C-alpha cells in the first residue's frame, strides 16, 4: 500500500477508511522490508505502538494526526535516543524535546524512527556516520549509491516510502543535496524561521531545520507546522508564518526569475545543464520573465563556508567532554587525559578534521586572517543576493553538481567532497530559503534536482514556483 500525500492519508483517516494503528502497521512493515538500506539509527515498534495509543485519543482536527514522519537523529527526542550519528553520543537519552519535533507531536504526527546522517551533520554522503552508510533506495543491485548528506537517512526514508515526510537540517546543503540525490522535495527555510532549540549544534550561524517530502504541497504543510518563534533560541525570528499550503499558487505571470551565470561551472555534466535549461523554458512558458543575473562572489562561497562552519563547530563541539553525557573513555588517569581520550575515541575522522581546522582558524594570531576575513566575504556574498533580489523574485539553479554517486567512490580528497555543496552553500551563507525538487533524470535513470532560491522569509514564493514546476512531471 502506498500513500501519495498527507492530504490523501488524512482524508482516509477522516473517513474512517484507515486507523492510526493500521497506518503504523503499514509503515512498520515497510521499514522492516528495507532494513538493509540502513536508513534508521533508531527504530522500535514498541515506541510506535505507544505513540499510536496517544494519537488515537486526539481529535481529527489535528493537522498531522497519524501522519508518519521520520526524524533526523540530530533532533533531541524524549522517547527515542539521540546520537547525532556519533559514538560520543551513543546512549544519550535527551530529557527534553526539540522545538521542531514538539510542534510535530502537538499536531499528532507519528514518529517512525530516527534517521541516519553524517556524524554531527558533517558530510555530503551519509558516509561519516558511526552507524555505517545509508544506501540510496534508488540504487540498482550491483552498485549501491550514496543518498547524499548530511540528512541522507531522512531523504532516503521519503524516497523508500518509509514515511510521508521527514525532518532534516541544512547547514551548507544538507537538505537540498540529499533531496536531489534521492528524488524527493527538500526545503531549507530562511535562517531563523525554525527554532534550533534541541538540535545538536554544528555551525550555529548557518544551521536551519527543514523538511523532506514526496511533493511540494506536503512540504508546505509540514513547514508551516514546524516554523515559528521560540524564545529559547535567540536567533529565532518573530515573523508571522503564512498558511503556505492554502496559498499555493502556480501562476507565475509577472514573476521575474534570475539565472546566475556563475552557476555554470566547469566540469558539470551536460545532463545537469540540460535539466536546468528545461526548467528555465518551462518557467518562461508558464509566464515568468527570465533574467540573466550575476552573483559575482559565488566562487568564494565554498572557501568561506569551510572557514566559518569548522570554526563554529570547534566551539560547539567543545561540550562533548565525557562529563555531562554520552561516551567517556574509561582508562584515563587525569582530567585532561579523560577529555583527550574521550574526544579522540568518540569523534570520527571528518569531525576531528573540522574541529582542528576550526581551532586553528580561531587561534591567536590567525583569527583575523581566516575567520574575520571569511565573515567579511560572507557579507559580500549576502549582498550579491540582496542586490539581485531588488529586481527578481526568485533564482533558479541546479541543486548539485552530479546525480547520486556510488557509495564506494573514493572520498580521500576532502576538497573534492566539499565541491558537492557548490550550488547550495551560497544561499546558506546568505541565510536565504531554498528548495530542491526532482526535475528530470540522467541517462542512468537517476533523478536530478533543481533549486529555487528566494528572499528572506519568502518561502511562499519558492513553494509557488516549485508547485508550478512540479506539474511538469506529474
Amino acid at each position, binding site marked *: 500500500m502506498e500513500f501519495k500525500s498527507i492530504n490523501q492519508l488524512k482524508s482516509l483517516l477522516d473517513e474512517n477508511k484507515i486507523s492510526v494503528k493500521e497506518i503504523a502497521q503499514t509503515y512498520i512493515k515497510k521499514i522492516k522490508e528495507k532494513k538493509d538500506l540502513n536508513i534508521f539509527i533508531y527504530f522500535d515498534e514498541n515506541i510506535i505502538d505507544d505513540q499510536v495509543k496517544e494519537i488515537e485519543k486526539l481529535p481529527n482536527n489535528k493537522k498531522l494526526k497519524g501522519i508518519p514522519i521520520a526524524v533526523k537523529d540530530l533532533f533531541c527526542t524524549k522517547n527515542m535516543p539521540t546520537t547525532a550519528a556519533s559514538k560520543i553520543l551513543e546512549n*544519550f*537519552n535527551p*530529557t*527534553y524535546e526539540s522545538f521542531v519535533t514538539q510542534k510535530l507531536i502537538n499536531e499528532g504526527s507519528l514518529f517512525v524512527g530516527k534517521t541516519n546522517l553524517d556524524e554531527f551533520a558533517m558530510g555530503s554522503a551519509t558516509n561519516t556516520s558511526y552507524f555505517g552508510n545509508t544506501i540510496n533506495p534508488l540504487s540498482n543491485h550491483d552498485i549501491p549509491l550514496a543518498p547524499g548528506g548530511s540528512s541522507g537517512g531522512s531523504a532516503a526514508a521519503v524516497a523508500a516510502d518509509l514515511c510521508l515526510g521527514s525532518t532534516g537540517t541544512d547547514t551548507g546543503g544538507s537538505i537540498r543535496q540529499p533531496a536531489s540525490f534521492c528524488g524527493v522535495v527538500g526545503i531549507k527555510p*530562511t*535562517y*531563523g524561521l525554525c527554532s534550533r532549540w534541541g538540535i545538536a549544534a554544528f555551525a550555529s*550561524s548557518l544551521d536551519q531545520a527543514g523538511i523532506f517530502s514526496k511533493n511540494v504541497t506536503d512540504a508546505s504543510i509540514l513547514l508551516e507546522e514546524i516554523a515559528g*518563534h521560540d*524564545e529559547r533560541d535567540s*536567533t529565532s*525570528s*518573530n515573523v508571522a508564518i503564512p498558511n503556505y499550503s492554502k496559498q499555493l499558487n502556480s501562476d507565475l505571470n509577472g514573476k521575474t526569475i534570475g539565472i546566475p551565470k556563475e552557476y555554470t561551472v566547469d566540469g558539470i555534466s551536460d545532463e545537469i545543464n540540460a535539466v536546468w535549461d528545461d526548467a528555465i523554458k518551462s518557467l518562461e512558458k508558464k509566464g515568468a520573465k527570465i533574467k540573466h543575473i550575476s552573483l559575482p*562572489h559565488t*566562487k*568564494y562561497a565554498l*572557501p*568561506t563556508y*569551510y*572557514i566559518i562552519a569548522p570554526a563554529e563547530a*570547534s566551539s560547539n563541539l*567543545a561540550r562533548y567532554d*565525557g*562529563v*555531562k*553525557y*554520552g*561516551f*567517556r573513555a574509561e582508562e584515563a*588517569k587525569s*582530567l*585532561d*587525559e579523560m*577529555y*583527550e*581520550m574521550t*574526544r*579522540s575515541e568518540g569523534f570520527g*575522522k571528518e569531525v*576531528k*578534521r573540522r574541529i*582542528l*581546522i576550526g*581551532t*586553528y582558524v580561531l*587561534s591567536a594570531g590567525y583569527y583575523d586572517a581566516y575567520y*574575520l*576575513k*571569511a*565573515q*567579511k*566575504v*560572507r*557579507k*559580500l556574498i*549576502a549582498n550579491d543576493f540582496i542586490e539581485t533580489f531588488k529586481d527578481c523574485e526568485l533564482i533558479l539553479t541546479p541543486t548539485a553538481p552530479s546525480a547520486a554517486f556510488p557509495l564506494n567512490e573514493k572520498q580521500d*580528497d*576532502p*576538497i573534492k567532497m566539499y565541491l558537492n555543496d557548490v550550488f547550495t552553500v551560497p544561499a546558506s551563507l546568505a541565510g536565504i530559503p531554498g528548495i530542491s525538487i526532482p526535475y528530470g533524470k540522467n541517462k542512468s535513470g537517476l533523478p536530478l534536482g533543481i533549486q529555487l532560491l528566494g528572499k*528572506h522569509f519568502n518561502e511562499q514564493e519558492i513553494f509557488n514556483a516549485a508547485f508550478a514546476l512540479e506539474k511538469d512531471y506529474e
Partner: protein
Amino acid sequence: MKLDTNTINKIAKLARISLSKEEANDLLKDMNSILDWVEQLNEVNTDSVEPLANISSSTLPQRKDESKDINSSEEILKNSPDKLEGYFAVPKVVE
C-alpha cells in the same frame, strides 16, 4: 605548507583531542590542502566591509531578562557517565 607536525599537535592539545602519529600525518596533509585552498579569499578586497555574523538580526525580538527556576538537576545529571551525590564525577584533579 602552513602547518607542521608541531603545530598540529599544539592545535590538537588546544582542542583536547589526542592524535596518534599516523592520524597527525593524515590530518597534516588534509589540513594543509584545505588551508591552501581557502587562501583564495585573499583575492577579495574586503577593506571597509563589515563582517557578517548574524543574518537575522533585524527580526530578532528581545525578551525580558528574568531567571526561571526549573529545578532540573536530576534531569541534567541523568545522562552523565559518572555522578556522585548530585555532582558530575571526574578523575582526580588535585593530588
